[in-house]
């Protein structure tokens, strides 16, 4: 079986890549190891309203709630509010990721992409050094597909990149290990996404509460794998829920575990190979949010694949247009926020409280980590600044000047 491009993984990055590649004339197959697109959900389900401008999902079946803003709580519960002043000004959505993913797949299929479920990539086919296809397992059947481009949209544990020779293993300090309950019967009335910081609450990460309306919320935790012990994420999450009077009567209707790469960008293009989404580490290392990057990156990848097919050029050099363009779109942001993640890790709870106290009356009118990062950089106590300067040198300046 011959295709122009085979995409391993039917998450948002995979489906958007498939759609835009197919729309530009490529013959595309998406393979997915799981039995259903978007299931199980492995996500906090928050997304920026940026996607309104992109026309990638239609209708509103995928929207659980429109958010009015966000609240960030320091360890002593000092609150920094973003977007509170403009009631009704939508700052983001909480979504149903399963429906969202299926919408993206529907658009890809409408554009001409084929999908195969229960089909797991097990290796690459090479002729000499050249990658010419992919080996997959469909139930018990071993299948071989020939393709000019293999796209690794295979998530945090990407094997496509690894098989092709890209260093994809994550250092434990670059992975957030996560757990999340979806709780019914909770007492949250307003539409604010909440984030809770603190070494005791979530070492190297945070707890989030994302309301989905109708007394339902996603309550989750991410902790840095390098600071984690066996089962710690689940335990700390349950402690948090137990202590929050709004949540403790909640009835769980879903529990999930997840893993989020929070690393610096990696190489995403080789001859005949493209990595997208979590596999490409297209996640904001500060927030752990990745959906918008995955969609933006997927669109670029799809367009470049279309061009490559027309030109019959699948070299790293030709495909590197993808890498250049995603770096222009959000590469700098990932690098900056990686640095900021490291800075934040060095701060003790006292410092976080101090910063939150200094920022609590500031008005942030949009959910922008950039604005927040700048403000926090301004408020760093001298001792922290000094330590950070020793460790990270001129890069701090870089953060402030951007």
């Amino acid at each position: 079986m011959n295709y122009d491009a085979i995409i391993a993984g039917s998450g948002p990055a995979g489906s958007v890549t498939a759609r835009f590649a197919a729309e530009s004339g490529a013959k595309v197959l998406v393979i997915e190891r799981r039995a259903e697109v978007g299931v199980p959900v492995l996500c906090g389900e928050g997304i920026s309203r940026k996607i309104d401008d992109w026309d990638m999902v239609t209708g509103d079946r995928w929207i659980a709630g429109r958010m009015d803003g966000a609240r960030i709580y320091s360890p002593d519960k000092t609150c920094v509010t973003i977007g509170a002043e403009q009631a009704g000004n939508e700052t983001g959505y909480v979504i149903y990721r399963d429906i969202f993913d299926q919408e993206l797949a529907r658009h890809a299929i409408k554009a001409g992409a084929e999908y195969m479920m229960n089909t797991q990539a097990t290796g690459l086919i090479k002729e000499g050094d050249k990658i010419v296809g992919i080996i997959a397992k469909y139930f018990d059947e071993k299948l071989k597909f020939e393709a000019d481009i293999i796209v690794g949209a295979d998530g945090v544990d990407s094997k496509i990149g690894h098989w092709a020779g890209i260093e994809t293993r994550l250092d434990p300090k670059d992975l957030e290990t996560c757990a999340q309950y979806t709780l019914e019967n909770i007492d949250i009335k307003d539409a604010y996404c909440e984030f809770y910081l603190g070494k005791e609450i979530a070492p190297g990460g945070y707890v989030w509460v994302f309301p989905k309306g109708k007394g339902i919320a996603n309550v989750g935790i991410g902790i840095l794998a390098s600071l984690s012990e066996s089962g710690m994420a689940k335990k700390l999450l349950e402690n948090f829920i137990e202590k929050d009077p709004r949540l403790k009567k909640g009835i769980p209707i879903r529990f999930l575990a997840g893993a989020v790469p929070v690393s610096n960008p990696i190489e995403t293009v080789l001859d005949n190979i493209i990595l997208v989404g979590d596999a490409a580490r297209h996640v904001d290392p500060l927030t752990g949010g990745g959906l918008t990057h995955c969609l933006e990156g997927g669109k670029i990848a799809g367009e470049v694949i279309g061009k490559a097919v027309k030109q019959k050029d699948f070299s790293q050099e030709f495909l590197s247009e993808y890498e250049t363009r995603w770096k222009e779109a959000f590469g700098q942001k990932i690098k900056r926020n990686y640095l900021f993640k490291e800075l934040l890790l060095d701060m003790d709870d006292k410092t976080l409280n101090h910063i939150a106290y200094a920022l609590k009356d500031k008005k942030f009118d949009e959910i922008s980590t950039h604005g927040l990062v700048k403000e926090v950089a301004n408020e760093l106590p001298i001792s922290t600044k000094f330590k950070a300067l020793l460790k990270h040198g001129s890069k701090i300046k870089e953060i402030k000047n951007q």
Partner: protein
Amino acid sequence: MGKPKAKVDINKCLACCGCISVCPQDAVNWFGGKAFVNDEKCISCAICIRTCPVGAISGEVY
């Protein structure tokens, strides 16, 4: 008797793939919706055990 090798309790594993992502030896793989440890490759570093958010991996002595 060698060092304990990591072992996944498939009743607890939710296939988040964190262990697969951090294994320095490519010893953990996805199989039918669960994580599996290849004993031949496992070097008993316990990184996967500490990473698991639900405590599904333990060290088992062979």
